[in-house]
Structure formats: C-alpha cells, structure tokens
C-alpha cells in the first residue's frame, strides 16, 4: 500500500489517515492534527511567525520547526525530512516518485503521508514527467533550515543581569523550582481527592477541574448553597497519571478552549519556546511579546513557569521544559519518555518531592513508604478509612471489602486501583514476578464482579384471560422456540424477552383471532 503512488492530482496523500493512538490523553501531535479548518493557517503561521525574541536577529519560527522535527516525527520521517532540507530545488520541482521510493528499502510502513501533510511539512505535486513529486513546504523548509544553521540556543536571549533592573528576590534554586511545581500540583490533587482542609485552587484550575468532568457535585449536596465537589471516575483516572501527563491534560484542555487562531498560535509558540529553555535559567520578562505576557499568569497556575511579581526574570520549570520535548540535543537518538519526565520531577530532592513506594501484602495490608498527606488521601480513596496508621515515613493501611466497594461506588474501577498500586510498587518487589500478590488482585476482581452479578434487561409481560389457556400455551411455546421465554406464571402471565415482544404480541393476536373464530369471544388483551 505504502509504496503505491498517490494520485497526482490531489494534494492529499493516498493512504487513509492512520488511526490515532487511543491513549488516554491526546498527544501534542493529535492536537495539531485535529485543528480542522484552522490547521493550514495555524501551521503556516507557526512556521513563519517571528521568534519570541526581538533583540537578536533570528530565523522565523525556527524553534517550532525544531520541535516538530524532534518531537513529532519518527526516525524515518526525520531522516527523510532532513535529507529533503539538504536538497535544493526550484519552485516547481521536488523529489520525484522514483527517487523518493529509492530512499526506502522495502515498505514505507513508518512513513505517514497523512501526518506530514497535516503538519504542513510536505506537499505532493503532480508532475509532467513522472506521476508525482514531493517537496517540503516553504515556511517549514526555510524555518528548519535556518534553525539548523543557527547558533542560537535559547528562545529568549539571556541578558546579563546588569542590563535588567535588580530582582527583588534571589533566583530560585533547582530544588525550589521543582518543589514549586510539586506544590502547585499537590494543591490541585489534594483538592481533587478531597483532603480535608485544603485550600481551593485558583479559579482557572477550579474551572478546569469541573468543566472537564474530573469532579462532580456530590448528589447529596447538589442544588444547596454549600455544594460539595467529589472526584469522578475520570478524575481518578487523571490522578493515576504521571505529573507530566496531568500537566499536559490541563494544557490540552486549555488549548481546546481557545477559539481564535491567533491565540492558538501564540500559546503554541510559547509552549514550544519554553521547551527549548534551559532549566534554572532566568529569562527576561521584557523580551516576551504582549500576547505571551498575558498568558503568563495561566502558565503560572499550571506550574509551568515560576516568577514573582516585579522580578525581571521568569524561570521555566522542568515540567514546562519537558512537556513538549523540544531541543534537538536532548532528543538526539531517542525521545524522552513520559516516565523519565516523572523521574526528573521526583529525583532531585527526596525530602521535598516524596516518592510513593507501595508494598501490597498477601494479608491485604498496604504499606506505603511516603510522608505526603497527598498520598494518604489518594490511598484512602480505596483503603479502609477507619483502620490505618500514619507513621513518620510510612503509611499502613488495609484493603477491605467495604473500602474497595465504596470506591467502586464512586466509579473507580478495580483496574484503576491495581494500576495505581502497580505503578507505585516498591522497588524492592518491582523485579519480582508480581507486584501485587495474586490473591489480592483476584480478590479485587471478585469484589468488582459482585457488583455486577445482577444483569438488568428489558422484558415484556403478556397477560391472558382465564379462558385463553390454549393461547397462553401457544404463545409460551412460540417464545420458547425462539429462546425468548423468560417466565411462565400460573395465573395467565407470560414474560418474554423485549426483543421478541412485538412478535409475541402479534402472534398472540393472531392466535386469539383464530381461537375466537373457532369459539367466538371477545378480544380483551392488556399489554403492559
């Protein structure tokens, strides 16, 4: 399929779009590919838009092009694109089909026409000599070229401190920066899991939590003045994710709310620019464009940047830098995985960013090495609330039938609980065959099964008159033949499956008519 030539007349690649990965949070790529009608304009603008920095001469949009190159393309695509950048061609020529195909050995299974088209990287053109030729689109081409040839490392110039007005606060250390992000997220998660006495997060976040369905009003308090918000199944899913994924879903939802193309462009540019920053480096606020300056408070709420009011510099946090992995150097050879982001966040300082290591024992005890109240709240979502111990460095809790069932009622699934426990399982047992004892796993599954022992399905009840005994028997027989007889009572009641109800009633009518023709009588059918 992949090697068959695309129809030359059209701009669209021949193959159907590859289905998007059904992962829980849509990726950056997914977002870009689903801009719909805004796509061509947005992408073109992103590639050609001027760099955030205004002080030094810079190729337009180069950082965005780099981000695309390093983050969104697979190895083959990257290789092909880089090769095409190096080649020169005129406005109406490109790589011919034959040449292009010769670059591949065997099938082009890792080459996705649709994706590269969506990202406005390549265009397919009909050619006179051969069937088609392919070339890079101009904004991307020029942007990437200058990016590759540029020596600039930072999206914003690092002005010497002397050129800026003095900062009222000393620059944050790496640990402070990490703790800052962690704090913001812990605050959000605390609120999400309903830890007592937590402050409400700021309105942006609050709105996000509610609008995205991560929390819902507790049915009991709905409508009252003091509405209580509770975590939903979706929220629980959210909680189980890595911090980087959580931040991304916040950012993703924020992007979804944006309507105008220009605001999308400016947000995306800021995000990609941040991803090219260096951790613990301060960047001058003064270099930000006006639109970016307005975005700053939101990014601060999400824990992406750190700055104190009045400070001349802002500091991107590690999560912002790794959110959309961007710099070429970091992604040479391999792309950072989301887990490495997580470890980045949790490694630097054990005391400030407590890790959660859980041992689940065969007697249903959950021993969690942590001192974080957040972890306590998380675990209490499915562990026994009345029977646990909080020690300075460890929590000892129990999984009981009641506690687990209560969490099922909230919509949390057994698989989610297991996933959470597995994800945080203690390094001591990670290598073992099982991270959670088999008996605990199967017991959780059994408890979940208990919830669904009764299946409800629609049924239809047909009543018969005293003298309609024969008809009743026939109808029951008719339904039984079709496997739809559920119950036949003594007092002239036949219950059939809903699917065959119509047929059964029709059959009854016919039989009644026949029977009446024989005996003479009155049609008196009650159908409920």
């Amino acid at each position, binding site marked *: 399929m992949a090697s068959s030539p695309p129809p030359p007349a059209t701009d669209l690649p021949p193959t159907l779009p590859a289905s998007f990965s059904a992962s829980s949070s849509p990726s950056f790529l997914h977002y870009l590919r689903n801009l719909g009608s805004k796509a061509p304009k947005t992408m073109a603008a992103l590639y050609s838009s001027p760099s955030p920095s205004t002080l030094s001469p810079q190729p337009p949009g180069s950082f965005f092009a780099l981000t695309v190159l390093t983050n969104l393309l697979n190895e083959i695509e990257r290789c092909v694109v880089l090769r095409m950048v190096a080649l020169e061609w005129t406005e109406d020529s490109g790589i011919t089909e034959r040449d292009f195909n010769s670059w591949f050995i065997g099938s082009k299974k890792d080459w996705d026409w649709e994706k590269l088209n969506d990202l406005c990287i390549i265009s397919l053109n009909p050619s006179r000599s051969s069937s088609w030729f392919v070339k890079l689109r101009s904004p991307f081409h020029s942007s990437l070229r200058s990016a590759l040839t540029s020596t600039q490392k930072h999206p914003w110039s690092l002005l010497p401190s002397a050129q800026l007005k003095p900062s009222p606060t000393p620059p944050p250390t790496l640990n402070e920066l990490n703790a800052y992000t962690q704090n913001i997220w812990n605050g959000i998660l605390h609120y999400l899991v309903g830890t007592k006495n937590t402050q409400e997060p700021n309105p942006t976040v609050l709105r996000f939590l509610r609008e995205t369905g991560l929390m819902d009003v507790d049915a009991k308090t709905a409508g009252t003045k003091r509405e209580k918000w509770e975590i939903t199944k979706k929220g629980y899913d959210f909680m189980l994710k890595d911090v980087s994924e959580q931040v991304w879903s916040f950012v993703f939802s924020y992007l979804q709310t944006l309507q105008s193309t220009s605001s999308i462009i400016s947000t995306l540019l800021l995000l990609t620019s941040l991803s090219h920053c260096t951790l613990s480096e301060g960047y001058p606020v003064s270099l930000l464009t006006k639109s970016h300056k307005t975005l700053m408070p939101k990014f601060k709420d999400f824990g992406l940047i750190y700055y104190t009011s009045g400070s001349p510099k802002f500091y991107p946090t590690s999560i912002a830098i790794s959110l959309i992995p961007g710099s070429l150097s970091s992604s040479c050879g391999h792309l950072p995985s989301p887990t490495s982001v997580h470890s980045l966040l949790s490694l630097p300082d054990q005391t400030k960013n407590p890790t959660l290591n859980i041992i689940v024992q065969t007697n249903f005890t959950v021993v969690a090495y942590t001192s974080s109240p957040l972890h306590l709240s998380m675990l209490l979502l499915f562990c026994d*609330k009345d029977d646990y111990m909080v020690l300075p460095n460890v929590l000892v809790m129990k999984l009981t039938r009641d506690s687990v069932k209560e969490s099922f009622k909230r919509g949390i699934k057994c698989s989610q609980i297991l996933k959470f426990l597995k994800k945080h399982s203690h390094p001591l047992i990670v290598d073992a065959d099982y991270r959670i*004892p088999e008996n605990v796993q199967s017991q959780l599954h059994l408890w979940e099964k208990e919830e669904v022992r009764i299946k409800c399905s629609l049924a239809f009840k047909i009543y018969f008159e005293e003298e309609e005994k024969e008809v009743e028997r026939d109808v029951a027989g008719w339904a039984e033949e079709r496997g739809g007889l559920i119950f036949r009572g003594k007092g002239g009641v036949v219950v059939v499956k809903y699917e065959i109800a119509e047929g059964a009633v029709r059959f009854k009518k016919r039989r009644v008519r026949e029977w009446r023709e024989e005996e003479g009588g009155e049609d008196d059918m009650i159908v409920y």
Partner: protein
Amino acid sequence: MGTQMKSHNTLLSKPLSALTLKPDHSSRPLWVLPTGSILLDTSSPIYSTAYDFLVTISEPQSRPTYIHEYLLTPYSLYAAAAVNFTEKGIVTTLEKFSKTKVPENVKDFIKKCTSRYGKVKLVLRSGRLYVEALNTPEGVGILRGLGGNKEIVKCRVIVRSEEKKEGEEKNELEEEGFIEGYVDDEIKGNLNVITGIDDEADEDDSSDSDSSDEEGGGHTARLLKNLDQTRNKTSSVSFEIQPALVSVVKKTAAQLNYPLMEEYDFRTDETILSIPNYHLRPTTRIRRYQEKSLSKMFGNGRARSGIIVLPCGAGKTLTGVTASQTIGKSAVVLCTNAVSVEQWKQQFEKWTTINSGSNKDTGRIARFTSDHQDKMHPDGCILVTTYTMMTFSGKRTAQSQAFMEKLVERDWGLLMMDEVHVVPANTFRRVIANVKAHTRLGLTATLVREDDLIADLNFLIGPKLYEANWMDLTKAGFLANVQCLEVWCPMTPEFMREYLRSDRMRQQQLLYIMNPKKMQVVKFLLNKHQSRGDQIIVFSDDVRALVYYGRRFEGQIIHGGTPEFERQAVLRLFREGSINTLFISKVGDTSIDLPEANVIIQIASHFGSRRQEAQRLGRILRPKESTAQDGTNTDSFNAFFYTCVSKDTSEMYYCTKRQQYLIDQGYTFKVLTSLHERAAEWCRKQSPKAFLSTKKEQVEILRDVLEETALAGDAQKAESEEMKFLRAEGKKGENRNLEVDFFEKRSGGLSSVSGGGGKSYEERSAGKGNKLMKQRKSNKKINIFDL
C-alpha cells in the same frame, strides 16, 4: 496483671506521625508504635536477629512476606521475663532496632510488666521447693515482702540456725531464714540479642548457624554442651516452702502481683530417678529452630515450664523428645488420641536409645490407653497417654484404676502436653492436679482459640517460650510449600431453593456440603491428583456427608466411630501407598502423622475455626522428597490444599473467617471461580456413565438430604413443602411416582444409601439438631448419622 495496652490487633487510625524518625532510620528494622504494636521490615539485613528478639518479647500478629506486625502484651513480656530478659535489656534493644524513638508509654508499659514478672521464681531443687530471687537489694526486698506475708509464712519451712554448719558468721539474711545460693546465668545465645548485636563474635555465631541450618547434628551437641558447661553464676537468695502448700504460695504470690516462675533444677535432682541409657541416637539431627526453642526452655541450666509453638510438620515431636531426653527423668506425655499415642511411642524409639541396648527387655515406654496398658517400669520411664484417659471421671476397669493410682503416686520430671490448644482449661486443671510433674511443656502449632482461652494456658502451663515463623521455615525447606486454593462451587438451582427455604441450620449445612456441583469438583480433583500419584486426604466435619462421599468415591473412611484396629490398618495402608485416598472426619485434624500426604480436599469444616484450618493444612506440611532445602522452596508448590465452598451460602462467610490465621502467617488463598465448569464438563464425559450430570441424579441426592434432615426436623410443614417440591420435580423429570418412593425410602434415609447404618458414633457436636434428634428418637439406639 497490668492492663493490656490494646485488646485487638487492629491498626489504629490515630495520627502517629508525631513519632520522631531517627536520622539513620533506614538501617533499623522496626517501628515501635505507642499502641504497643511493632512493625518489622523483613528486608532488613538484621531481620533474623530482630525476629528472634521480637518473638521473645511480643506476640506475632501477622507475618506476611514483607512487613510483620507484632504486639506487646503482658503475657509476651511475662514470657520474655521468663527467659531472663530484663526491662533495661528490652528497652535498649527496642530502641536500638527502632526507626522511630520508642514512645514513652511503651517504655512504661514494658517497665510495668517486667518489674514484677520473672523476679521471683519457684525452684525445685533436690525435691525441695524454694522461692528464689536474685541477691540484689531489689530481689531481697521482694523476697522479704513475700516471705513476710502472713499466708506465706505459714507455708515456709523454718530453718533452724543450729542446722547451719558454720553458724558463727550469720548474716542478716540468714537470720531471716533466707538461704543464699547461686543460679546459672542464661546461656549466651538466648541473651545475645539484648546484650549487643554489635558484638562481632555474636554476629559470627548467628551467621554460622544460619548457614548450617540443615545440619542439625552439630547443634544438638552444642545445645548439650551449653547445658553442661560451667557457666557464670549469679548469687541468689531464697527460702524454702512446704511442697504440700505450694498452691497457696503460688496463689498468694500472684495476688501480690509477683507471679512465680517455675523452674526445675533437674541436674541436681536426685528424688526422681533418671532413665538409664537415655540418649539421642547419633543419627538424630535437630534443626536450628528446634534447638532455639529448646535453648529457651533450658536457658539457665534449669528446666522452665512453658509452651513451644511450631508449625505442624516442623518436628514438634522431635522437639518434645529432645526436651524429655535432656531432662532425662520420668515423663508423662499427653496426646489427643490413641493413634498419636502410638506415634509418640514410635518417635521416642526412633530418635532415642530409650528402648534399645540395655533397656531393650525392660521397656521404658508405657502406653496407657483403653486398648493398651503397658507395664509401667518402676524406675524412670516414659508414659504416653491421652487427655481423655487422664480425666476420665467414670468408673475405670480394675487394671486401669490401678495404673492410674500408680501414676498419681509418682513424681514426674516432665509433663509434656501435645496439641495444648485443643484441651479445655478445666481438663488441664485436672491433669495438672493429677500428675505431680516438675516441668510442664506444652506443644502446639496454633496458639489460637476462637474462645480466647489462650490466656489460661499462660498460667496453667507457662509462658510461650518460642514461636517459629511459618514462612521462614517454608523458605528454608523445612515445610512443604503449599498452594492453598478455594474452589467455588455454585449451588444447583434445586439445592439453592431448598437452602433458602430451610430455616434449620443442620439442613442448610448438609445442603451445601452435598451440593452436586461440589461432588463433581471433588470427583474431578480426586481424579486429577490420583493420576499424578498424589496421596490425598478428604476432610469433612459432617460424618454423614463424609460417609456418603467415601462410599460414592470408593475410598477408605475414618471417623470417630471407626474401631482402633481398623484405623491403624487403614492408616498403615495409606502410609505404604497401597491406598491413595483417605476420607477422614475431624479426628484427623491433629496428631495423625501421614508424611506422604500432599493433597487435602476439604468438603466440610467446623464453621469459622481458624485453628482447624491451620491444623488441617499441617497434615500436608511435612516436607516432601521434592522439597528444596536451599531457600528456593517458595518457587513451586509441592502440596495442595483445596477447600470446596458452595457459593452464596454461609459456607463462604465461614471460609473467609477460617483462613485468617493462615493469612496472618503469610499464606495466600487463591480463589478458583470456574473450576466447577471444568469439573462438570469432565464429569459429563465420564464413561461408562456420566457422573452426576443429569438433573435426576442431582435431585436424588437432594431427596436423600431432605429425607435425612427431615427426620430431625420438628416442623411438619417443612416436610410437606419438601414433598410438594419433590413431587413437582418428579413430574417434571421422569414421570414416576415419587410419592411412593418417598415414603418407602424414609425408613432408611441417607444412611442406607451410604451403607453406614448401625454403626455407633462417638464424636459429639453441640447443636439444636442433636437435641431434637435425641428427644425424638430417645428410645432408639443412636444411629451413626444422628449427630
């Protein structure tokens, strides 16, 4: 006795984060909580040392693979005091091991419990009784207090000053009638843990014994050497009391909050003759944990009374035999039934030279059961008997009466009680009153009782001296690695209907035991394991069902009513491997040693008895030939423990409850929810005839069950309901006249079907059904099924 800090093992939800974590906490293995709970991290490099310490001072609550939970109780501290652990030693060691600072209230609790325990001892030396304390100002003070008590004064033997040899230098203590003496120090191994783990030599010692776990021979020698070596002595002070009034002294001392710890100085005792030529055979090897438990018993060169807890199959008998041999005096061994009397005798002969060599003709082991009443050797001998024989209150035969009188007359060096957990406290009181024994040793695998009477044992026998960890022994290959499986068998619709209708427990029970799906599963499992060449025990508490199953599957049956000779014969056949399946009632729960058995199928059990579950598991715990002893034993299972439960009945509830003790020992139960489907499928394919696969066959069983239980029933109504149902079922099925059948069959009931009619049955079970039955059929001979 000081108030217990916490009655249950539940974890408290108090915020305990106020505890301060020590900076080097990661190298310490314990958390000590203000509730008296102690958590032990088993991944710690000093786990083994910490375990030995904890098991001495506290009660294990739960011991799964990673984090153990222990609880400090007055009894456990009493036991620690008994092996000469001092308050200071306990607190400093606890502090040394603890990740957190030991809470003050825990320290206070330890102080409170140990300040009085173990300070005063009742010592039996050369046939005379002394109340002894250490010769320290504190010890002397306590002794003065006790000795001056007006009750105790009456009991004291007054030592006249002229009896003293060197009267010229009388000191104050002698004036008061106190005697100065010496007591051996506790052997080093026992106190290692509280004297200093930093001591390099000790570390070497422990690692040495770790590595040579399998080679017990050396340890035996070492243990004995330890006992014989001249050791450091500590000065002690004591006063003598009259043996006849010992109970008054004990009671008074307990009232004064100084319970007397009983010790027997057997090495100096001349009053009881030693058994000549009584040695362990050179081939006898003692394992490390057995040695450890014995070293607790003989810690200071004297014999202490107490209880040793070892899992079934871990060699309790050998431990008992060695204890008896170490003391070397006459001993009484009490077991639960005649079968285990035989086994004890065999074990004595197997491990020691007691009945060989010069003793060959005389016979130093005497059995005292209803069947065997061997001649008791007039000098030192071992007497093996059952609790029932000892406490029988009815009229005995002349021979038995004479035997009993001789027994009561004599003094015994040791009273050994097997399976102490099964015997009610008043039985103990009578036994202990009857047997004049200088040391009492209780042996058990499961120190749990549903009625919490364990506390009584503490004062009737003595503190718990040692408790082994099941999982550690399994890992080391001393126990078989058992896969515990719970097989869910749904009730057939007919059985479920009757189960829900029934308001009589007996009937409900029989319904879920005789559930055809369960029978299919049993059939399937039997076939599967028989074809593997396994030795299978099928357990049922309900004798009717047991017999029914046994007949149906053509297996040998043993229950309370089986005559002794038949039992022995069947057991022998099973041990030889001539038969591979044994159907046994609760008489097989304890003591019957079937080393080759490796599969248990449990079809009915005694409600929620945790102890029974553990005991039954114990039947297959003895290591098999395939059991690896190199620490890899947990990799694969070599024994199987199936419990068949009927789904949606109260059996499920009891089943969960029963498993608790084993779960606390680190066992896991795997639930098989769909095995019954495979079993049903397999049963359908059986040739020449499918097994219980037609509704007709299943309804027949139901009818048998209903008829059987209807006899015991009081409600006429229930009967007619059942009949109505049966008639309906009959019409639906085979169109035959069940009504006639029903009335014809009534006289026989299940017993005629199973062929067990006419046999008498001894086991008793309390319950309403029983009573009703007796009322109704009081004029008839009690039928085997009329439980």
